[in-house]
């Protein structure tokens, strides 16, 4: 989900909490707001049913924490001992699977901050936390209510956007020619783009697991075509460690810019459910440049030839992806 979109979710929930707290006072506002934002910070799961259930269980856990601390307060050392034991268990779970890590810290934050609470503050806090829980669960159900097929389409579009970002990053290296001087900073950016791509792929796979068995094979075919496309795009990056003289790329700067634009436009067309262009006029000039210049002046012409072929294969794979996606949907 984009940063702006998530910030909007936070702002909307904040408005609901604010309105709900108008007649309840600042104490209610702060605890309700805090709990609501903590619950919104829990990373979204992929299942429609698991997501609100996960938030509900964490929210109920927080209410239980308030009660636990209140009941055990009579003996500070016993209270702290039990809190520490529960925290330890949650941390062990959290370092095994990171979806439990945030709830572990929520638990300790709530318990520590309520060590000095009184009965009257408890009676004000529980309704605030409970209201926040209700607001966030309802909000998540209403805003994320969509079929798995629809979620798959959204995730598939995210995947293609990630591929587009990755291919642009590769071409940026070729157009700027300073890869050898700044290899680390380029590789760091590429690493981040690849992580986004793999995360998207991971989510697609999880979504397929939640589909009915009868639909899984057709969606798996879609995923396979996407992975083949991603392998093709990743192969575009091979040129950066095959060539030694980046100044040769100055010769084909215009062609590189046209190629990346062509790839980007075609990917965007597939995202919009339009068929990609089959005409590859922009690559014709690249072919001619290779025939007349690169083949003669470069030390290893084969790498440039393979690079051009890789671009063509990527474009043809985009056509396959488009037909695979539409076939599965119908």
């Amino acid at each position: 989900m984009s940063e702006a979109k998530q910030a909007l979710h936070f702002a909307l929930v904040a408005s609901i909490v604010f309105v709900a707290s108008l007649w309840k006072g600042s104490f209610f506002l702060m605890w309700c707001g805090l709990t609501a934002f903590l619950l919104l910070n829990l990373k979204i799961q992929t299942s429609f049913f698991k997501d609100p259930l996960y938030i509900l269980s964490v929210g109920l856990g927080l209410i239980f924490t308030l009660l636990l601390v209140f009941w055990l307060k009579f003996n500070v050392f016993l209270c702290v001992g039990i809190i520490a034991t529960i925290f330890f268990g949650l941390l062990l779970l959290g370092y095994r699977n990171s979806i439990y890590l945030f709830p572990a810290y929520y638990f300790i934050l709530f318990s520590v901050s309520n060590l000095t609470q009184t009965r009257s503050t408890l009676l004000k806090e529980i309704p605030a936390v409970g209201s926040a829980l209700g607001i966030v669960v309802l909000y998540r159900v209403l805003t994320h209510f969509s079929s798995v097929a629809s979620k798959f389409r959204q995730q598939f579009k995210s995947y293609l956007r990630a591929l587009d970002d990755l291919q642009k990053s590769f071409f940026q290296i070729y157009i700027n020619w300073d890869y050898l001087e700044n290899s680390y900073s380029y590789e760091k950016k590429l690493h981040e783009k690849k992580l986004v791509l793999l995360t998207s792929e991971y989510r697609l796979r999880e979504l397929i697991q939640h589909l009915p068995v009868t639909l899984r094979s057709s969606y798996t075919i879609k995923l396979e075509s996407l992975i083949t496309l991603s392998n093709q795009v990743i192969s575009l990056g091979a040129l950066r460690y095959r060539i030694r003289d980046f100044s040769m790329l100055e010769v084909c700067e215009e062609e590189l810019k046209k190629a990346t634009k062509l790839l980007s436009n075609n990917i965007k067309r597939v995202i919009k459910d339009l068929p990609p262009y089959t005409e590859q006029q922009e690559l014709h000039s690249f072919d001619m440049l290779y025939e007349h210049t690169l083949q003669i002046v470069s030390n290893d012409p084969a790498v440039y030839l393979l690079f051009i072929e890789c671009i063509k294969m990527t474009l043809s794979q985009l056509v396959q992806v488009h037909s695979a996606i539409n076939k599965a949907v119908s």
Partner: protein
Amino acid sequence: MIINNYSRRFRFKKSSSQVIAFLVACVVSHFYAFSEAFWMPLATITVLSVPVGAILRKSLVRAVSFLGLVVITSFVFKLFPSAWLAFLLLLVLMVLAFYRDLLYLFLGFSVVLTFLYPLSTDIHLYRRVYDITLGALIGFILFFIFPFRPDVEFRNRVIPLIQVYVDMLDYFYQHLFNESKSNKPDLNLRERMADIFVSPNYFFPNWVYQSGFSLTLQPGHRHFLLMMERLAEVFSSLSNIGRHNFREETLKLMQAPLQNYLNECRAILRALSQVLSLKKLEEPVSDLRETLIQVEKTIYEILPSFEVSNLHPDFYPLMNLLETAKDLRITLLNLGNALQTSAIRHSSS
């Protein structure tokens, strides 16, 4: 097995260090806190909740940020006890917590607490500063008592990925020469690779790239990781080459030299795994030069003349295979060099 055992040990150590620090902070707070009882444990937990590898620098940043925000918000809420302002600040910090760091979560919490527990006197602020400083100090002391070895953790997290790469080599060979092959990528292997890189239980040590990671270890570890990622790219290319339907004559000619080459690549990967596991190498490994020359020779026998070779139906996949084989050699040799020059090989468990 090594990974699972170490991972359990790592989880246990990291969890127990935080819990022990929390207990110590609670006990100290009970006897020596001058302000509210929760500041000291909160500061300790804030300082300790850092990822592996960038511990001291990040913890210092957390401690200073936590203290700074508490001081500023205590002043502000004393002068302007506005719930709207506190709520707005909380909103901003929580949005940042979603995208950036766990630190903003603790900062958001501190905003709520400074608003709900306003300063009663000026000296109250100094008492808070004292409690938070003491809490942070407890956290730092625990780092020295329970030190983490990012180099050891790094080694053990990279080994599963090497195993995936060995399996990918095997899959590529079987897929290429299998009569009943399909055109599909191996989702299982891809899934294993993606699991290591990005799943909630991920092993891949991305924290090497973070600022604050040990300056002594960072160059070698970073270079090693870059080469590991480059290997993943090489295997993506191999996966695509394997999808092509080569002619039978081509496959017959390629089988022996390619098998020799891939066997030696597999041996290098296994050797890397052994070195990272701090075991002795069972047998020497080659530099892949001779077997690569054989592969190249065979390909040029199949494609006799470069100028007219593009008429051959297997021309592009064969040239791609040759270049990818060269990339594989260079990357594997770079991995070996990274082991020699970095601190990875020389650190003991």
